């Protein structure tokens, strides 16, 4: 295939990945729905109850096998997936709100305010995410709230930077200037004109932030700074499963597979959203 034919094809790029997007959305929906249902109606059994022999392999009775204490791994993975998703979604919602407010105001106002926000973001951005997360855990103590706080701190800098840039470019557009000349108050301009034009950026960055959030929660739990036993998250299950990998590899592989599927689905959804909501020139020229 030559460059010319590539350039022509790229015009229809957004439609092409519908299949991948559908599968990703379906997988994520199944994981989220089963975890949510299990939290309300424990159809897979009590995740903390000892139901059988220890370390028994997957069977008809225990579809995912049992763990080192004889608890049903299926119930624990469902609980863990629920914890992981809940923590990440809560944190990323907070991130989206904070980043949108900060980024919009900074991008619209520009000047020293934008400089200050950028500088603060740079300071936080300089810490590798897992280092920042572990530092937060060391200060506030491990646990659920700490995982949420850590994810927010890790995801806010990048999302704010992206939203600031998007808001700044919207603020230069003619309709914003017109609104300013017509003496429309700044909050109204921000809410009506700027916000509605950076919605795509918020959706895309929020999706990517969600996958980072799950990654960070997993990493923290893996190092022992996330949720504490007996509560489980996918990260803590993987960490515990690692200890028994020689005798009971399903303890490692099952939660790991669920975690990777969740992150992968979210990233694929993010890719599609990016192509749809933030069409770049790369796609529009032939």
């Amino acid at each position, binding site marked *: 295939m030559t460059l010319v034919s590539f350039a022509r094809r790229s015009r229809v790029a957004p439609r092409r990945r519908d299949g*991948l997007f559908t599968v990703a959305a379906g997988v994520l929906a199944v994981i989220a729905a089963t975890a949510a249902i299990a939290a309300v109606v424990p159809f897979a059994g009590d995740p903390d109850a000892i139901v059988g022999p220890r370390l028994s392999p997957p069977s008809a009775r225990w579809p995912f096998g049992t763990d080192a204490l004889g608890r049903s791994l299926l119930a624990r993975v469902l609980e863990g997936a629920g914890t992981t998703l809940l923590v990440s979604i809560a944190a990323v919602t907070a991130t989206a709100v904070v980043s949108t407010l900060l980024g919009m105001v900074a991008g619209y106002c520009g000047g020293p305010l934008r400089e200050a926000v950028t500088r603060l973001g740079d300071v936080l951005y300089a810490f590798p995410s897992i280092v920042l997360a572990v*530092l937060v855990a060391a200060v506030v103590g491990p646990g659920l709230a700490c995982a949420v706080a850590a994810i927010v701190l890790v995801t806010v800098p990048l999302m704010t930077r992206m939203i600031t840039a998007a808001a700044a470019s919207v603020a230069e557009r003619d309709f914003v200037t017109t609104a300013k000349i017509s003496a429309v108050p700044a909050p109204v301009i921000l809410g009506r004109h700027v916000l509605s034009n950076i919605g795509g950026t918020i959706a895309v960055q929020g999706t990517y932030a969600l996958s980072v959030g799950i990654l960070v929660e997993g990493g923290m739990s893996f190092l022992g700074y996330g949720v504490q036993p007996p509560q489980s998250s996918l990260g803590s299950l993987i960490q515990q499963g690692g200890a028994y990998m020689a005798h009971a590899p399903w303890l490692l592989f099952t939660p790991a597979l669920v975690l*990777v599927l969740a992150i992968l689905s979210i990233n694929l959804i993010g890719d599609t959203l990016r192509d749809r909501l933030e069409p770049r020139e*790369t796609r529009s020229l032939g």
Partner: protein
Amino acid sequence: MLRWIAGRVVSAAVTLLGISLLIFVAVRLMPGGYEDVILGPLAGPEQRAAVAARFGLDQPVFVQFFLWLGALVRGDLGISMVTQAPIVDELALRLPLTTLLAAMSLTVTLLVGVPLGVLTAVRGGGGRGGAAGRLLSAIGISLPEFVLGSVVIYVFSRYALGLRIGGFATGASGSGAAFQALILPALVLSVFSVAATARTTRDAVLGVLVEPHIAAAIGRGESPWHIVRHHVLRNIGIPVLTLLGSVVAYLLGGAVIVESLFNISGLGSYMVSALGRRDFGVVQATVLFTAAAFVVVSLLTELASGLLDPRVATTRKGVR
């Protein structure tokens, strides 16, 4: 140009100052003081006061901050509370391993990630191949290190595949042994950065391909690879360089999980074990080193971008 460079350097310095302040405050906020770490819970008040005086803990907090900053500037990172050895020496012992690990991963990233990105942009843009490429690159950035690392350890400890897990050597015991022990961890670390680099390179190439001068080159009848070599590669330098900068910074400080998993006594595992033992001086020093490495590498890539493309330096908007 000189003014721009000076501006970048000053702004990096400001960021560094902010980072050091943040780390200092975070460490002070951690539960359990230096006295508890050194003396344990049974010490009397006068013993605690003696330790506090020895480490300057009886001074006001902002004086402590500037004392620490002053010592930093002189290259004195303090001593470890647990081993009582100077932190600089312990860091010097661990840095070579982390650096070797980073260099190995970066080599893989450069050799695989960049060509892969160019190839997928030019060749596999459409059809089934394109979807497979996108799926693979998405898998690459979706595999957490602790999952990939655990699986690698499982596979290589279960089946004899030529590479040994564990039996790890420290930086002091010969680079040959260290190199061999670092192959698997380096590969685990590379998966993410290869995928991320391939994605960025691909986007950059796609961005260049639509420019008018490419259309002109196609019109002149130049062959695709001639176009790639002469018109595309020279124009994707900046985004790729920026990404590689953050990969380097990440590898230098962020290999915390891989180092813990593979028992590599490098910088990352030093930091985590220090946190576990509440060895605050070490935590301060290692986190600062990591963040400072990021800032310095970012500054260098930014300056290099300015050299590659003077437009970056003249229009303020060109920067990030």
